[in-house]
């Protein structure tokens, strides 16, 4: 079923695109030069991954859409990213919280994808895994240092992590596409990532002297099915402006 694989690849690609877009909004405005550089690094890795996933999706679709057609010429309801990654940057604590939740999940997912029955997916996952294992180490490390830092940094990290918690449920909730991918061995059973994610996140929280939000909290969902928050439309209007305003131009 190439359609399901196409949808699945779009999810991977859109997550990477949207999150890298958010990160690049920080450009030149981070709390320290070193952070500016590190965020750019993560954004660049994600952009690179997005390009691989889009290209493969475009080939499967076979309609001649390249990576840029995918990224710049689809409207919000066609985007398949998690709600988490489209949330606004907020403070740097919010940005870190978003990154940490995503990185750990992303790492666990890519780890499984290296064993995909689709050799191209396995290969991209292999390459990406190296990058993302650094991302997850970095964001986890910062959560620990800021959680177990000053009174203010502790409070800010806790608030940010609480705030975004409700967007984490979607990462582990398989729908028909996820199930089809799992059945074919292309992707792992999403629900199986939840326990290791909770374990890792819990350990970081504990080292950071932070309190884990309740596991059974109400969770938002919809991103993977194209039902987003109000934020995505604005992000895309900005990101897609040139391609929309000058259709067919080469840049």
């Amino acid at each position, binding site marked *: 079923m190439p359609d399901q694989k196409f949808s699945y690849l779009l999810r991977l690609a859109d997550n990477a695109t949207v999150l890298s877009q958010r990160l690049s909004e920080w450009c030149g405005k981070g709390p320290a030069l070193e952070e500016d550089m590190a965020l750019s690094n993560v954004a660049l890795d994600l952009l690179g991954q997005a390009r691989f996933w889009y290209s493969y999706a475009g080939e499967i679709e076979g309609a001649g859409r390249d990576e840029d057609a995918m990224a710049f010429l689809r409207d919000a309801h066609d985007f398949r990213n998690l709600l988490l990654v489209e949330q606004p940057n907020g403070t740097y604590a919010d940005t870190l919280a978003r990154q940490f939740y995503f990185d750990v999940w992303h790492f666990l997912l890519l780890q499984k994808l290296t064993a995909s029955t689709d050799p191209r997916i396995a290969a991209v996952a292999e390459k990406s895994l190296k990058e993302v294992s650094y991302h997850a180490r970095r964001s986890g490390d910062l959560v620990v240092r800021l959680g177990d830092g000053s009174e203010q940094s502790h409070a800010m990290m806790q608030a940010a992590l609480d705030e975004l918690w409700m967007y984490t449920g979607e990462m582990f909730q398989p729908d028909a596409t996820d199930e089809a991918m799992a059945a074919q061995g292309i992707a792992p059973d999403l629900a199986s990532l939840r326990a290791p994610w909770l374990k890792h996140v819990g350990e970081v929280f504990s080292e950071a002297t932070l309190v884990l939000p309740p596991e059974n909290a109400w969770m938002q969902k919809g991103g993977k099915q194209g039902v987003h928050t109000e934020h995505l439309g604005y992000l895309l209007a900005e990101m897609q402006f040139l391609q929309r305003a000058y259709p067919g131009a080469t*840049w």
Partner: protein
Amino acid sequence: DEQERVFQQRIDEGIKIEAKDWMPEAYRKTLIRQISQHAHSEIVGQLPEGNWVTRAPTLKRKSILLAKIQDEAGHGLYLYSAAETLGVSRDQLLADLHSGKAKYSSIFNYPTLTWADMGAIGWLVDGSAIINQIPLCRCSYGPYARAMIRVCKEESFHARQGYDIMLSLCRGTPEQKQMAQDALNRWWWPSLMMFGPSDALSVNSAQSSAWRIKLFSNDELRQKMVDQTVPQAEYLGLTVPDPDLKWNEQTQHYDFGEIDWEEFNNVLKGNGPCNRERLRARVKAYEDGAWFRDGLVAHAEKQERRKAQAAA
């Protein structure tokens, strides 16, 4: 005095001055001013380009631009480190930037209004920066010279990328070519002004020359930029916005028109289109980030204490 004589002699012999060497206070101060101004320019210079990262027209262009801005942050780091070898802290330097006491390159007080400005900045602004900086790879202060070598290598890459953006636009639709021409129109004169006032008005140059931290005059470097850039503009099919520009067979250089020094001075005084925004953006970033930096320090101190307690 004897120390100064020996110092000058080392310079004249082309021996690098290192951080631990004795140096005249004025040399140290001049270098701190020059290096930190350069570092600040890298940092502030992230902003006009950052303005188009989120709107880059393709994923590839976005990656290249983001990587470029990342390089600039890196240059800022090298340069702050070089300045720190002279006994001043990065925090102090930033405080001087934020208070308006220290300067950064005026070119970054112009707005980036279209995607073509990403091309023009790489081509003209980085191009001018390289012409300014290449001689500094041979300047007398070792840490500065070594930082400049790394910086220049990356800058020349950036300049090529900028030219490549211009090339794509000039080979594109008429609207794209128009965008490129418009960017050249807006960035040409400010880029020429990057080399500073004309030699006749330039102060302090003699001493800096003797110390080998200024190796060519402003006007020499500016001429070099014009000579190098005009043929590139011609290749792009763009018109340099200077009616007085023409090749001079005798001098084997381009003659060019009078620079509007009133504009230059006004931008320097804070009246450029974006002076206020640029400085505010940096101050805001710094202030918003205080809790973050403080948190990391608090954590490091806790870790130290824990280690000390474990050892006791």
